[in-house]
């Protein structure tokens, strides 16, 4: 019996009353305080659990031919007469489900089931713009005679994702950059120094017929791997050996050179967040989509079935043959693979036989890290950052 969300101590459940009764009573009482003030007897009339069909209807965001329907969440107290919907942590704990589908270091996919879009969106937004990472912030060009202009090269360098010992990063602090304050001194706590010093020279060992610049010259291409960490102070303890600060992808091409050209650059890296500049964003993408739902209202058989399954990406729908009658029938196998293209709604012969939608509280999260942290660590950090916001404001409000 779907009685979730109702305080059982107050309400007396008998049988499931008809929906009509409730609207009558709601009009008579007309108080949004029904949960608190109604006596047990009137509550019994109010305490009508929504039917299974009704719950199912609320769970689906409809995708119709020209519009989406049933978009907003309605799980608030006072929205449906006789239903509670008050925030309940234990209820939430019971309903929340997380299922991991893909767990590579840098590429994570999991389902987050049982949260509202506002919560899932907060996590997504924090992942993109509020989890701090290290990136090159200032570039000191001592010499650059390559054809890449200083400012262009500086911008390219800024976007190179960096990594290093994760424990070591815990020692790092923000380099304050508030213009109102006097500039904070760069220390080993807030600044990482990197150097890039490459000169292109001719390789005299190549035959005169050689045309490949990679063989003709040394250092004709400058790659991210040429960026070298120059530890300051205790940084050599924090980031040593394999934990050295270095570009995540050593093969990023930064510039091309010819003999006689030279690049000599010092770079300062600081912690920052994606809100300030995209180079600080720890993720390549962090996104979610709602799980598609495809409902077949009337059996789709024969030739229509063939047509039907061709409306979806491979693996979404299949044709099943009835063993007794030998009739062919279309069935949904894996709605997860669907893109909700609405192609199926364009066919006259399938009209009214199928309903497309997405499940409101089933988020398929995908987090692709740029490499400083693993994707699962990033998600946990994002949750911690949201929590910290709450704790901080909570504290401030209690103080005032």
């Amino acid at each position, binding site marked *: 019996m779907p009685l979730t969300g109702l305080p059982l101590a107050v309400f007396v459940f008998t049988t499931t009353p008809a929906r009509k009764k409730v609207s009558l009573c709601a009009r008579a009482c007309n108080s949004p305080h029904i949960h608190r003030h109604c006596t047990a007897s009137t509550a019994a009339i109010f305490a009508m659990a929504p039917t299974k069909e009704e719950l199912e209807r609320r769970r689906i965001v409809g995708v119709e031919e020209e519009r989406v329907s049933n978009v907003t969440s309605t799980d608030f107290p006072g929205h449906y007469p006789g239903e509670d919907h008050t925030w309940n942590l234990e209820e939430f704990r019971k309903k929340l489900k997380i299922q991991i589908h893909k767990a590579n270091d840098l590429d994570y996919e999991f389902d987050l089931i049982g949260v509202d879009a506002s919560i899932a969106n907060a996590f997504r937004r924090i992942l993109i713009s509020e989890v701090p990472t290290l990136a090159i*912030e200032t*570039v*000191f060009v*001592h010499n*650059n*005679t390559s054809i890449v202009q200083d400012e262009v090269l500086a911008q390219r360098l800024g*976007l190179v994702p960096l990594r290093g010992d994760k424990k070591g990063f815990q020692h790092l602090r923000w380099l304050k950059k508030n213009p109102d304050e006097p500039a904070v001194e760069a220390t080993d706590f807030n600044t990482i120094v990197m150097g890039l010093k490459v000169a292109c020279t001719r390789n005299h060992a190549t035959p005169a017929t050689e045309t490949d610049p990679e063989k003709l010259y040394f250092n004709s291409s400058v790659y991210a791997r040429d960026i070298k960490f120059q530890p300051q102070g205790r940084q050599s303890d924090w980031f040593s050996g394999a934990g050295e600060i270095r570009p995540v992808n050593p093969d990023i091409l930064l510039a091309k050179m010819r003999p006689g050209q030279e690049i000599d650059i010092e770079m300062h890296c600081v912690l920052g967040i994606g809100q300030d500049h995209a180079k600080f964003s720890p993720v390549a993408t962090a996104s979610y989509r709602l799980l598609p739902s495809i409902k077949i209202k009337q059996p789709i058989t024969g030739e229509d079935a063939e047509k039907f399954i061709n409306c979806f990406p491979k693996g979404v729908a299949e044709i099943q043959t009835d063993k007794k009658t030998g009739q062919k029938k279309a069935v949904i196998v894996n709605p997860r693979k669907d893109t909700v293209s609405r192609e199926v709604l364009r066919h006259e012969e399938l009209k009214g036989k199928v309903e497309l939608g997405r499940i409101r509280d089933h988020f398929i999260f995908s987090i692709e890290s740029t490499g400083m942290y693993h994707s699962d660590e990033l998600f946990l950090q994002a949750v911690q950052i949201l929590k910290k916001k709450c704790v901080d404001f909570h504290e401030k409000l209690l103080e005032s």
Partner: protein
Amino acid sequence: MQRDAYVPPTAGGGAARGGGGYGGGGGGGDIPRQVSMKYLCADCGKSVTINKGDMIRCKECGFRILYKERTKRMVQFEAR
């Protein structure tokens, strides 16, 4: 950052980065007149020293386009 006066790259001043040997303290007008300047040949890439009144021409290959050398001063950029 204290910017010192422009120091043209010269044949004699083999100073590395961070300002040459000249004109550090000198204000606007009294930078000593250079007698010779270093340029780079646009064709062969060799360094060419030219004195006042000389032909603008590479001494190695005779090419008539010469490039100015890059400043020896450090330049700071924001990686944004």
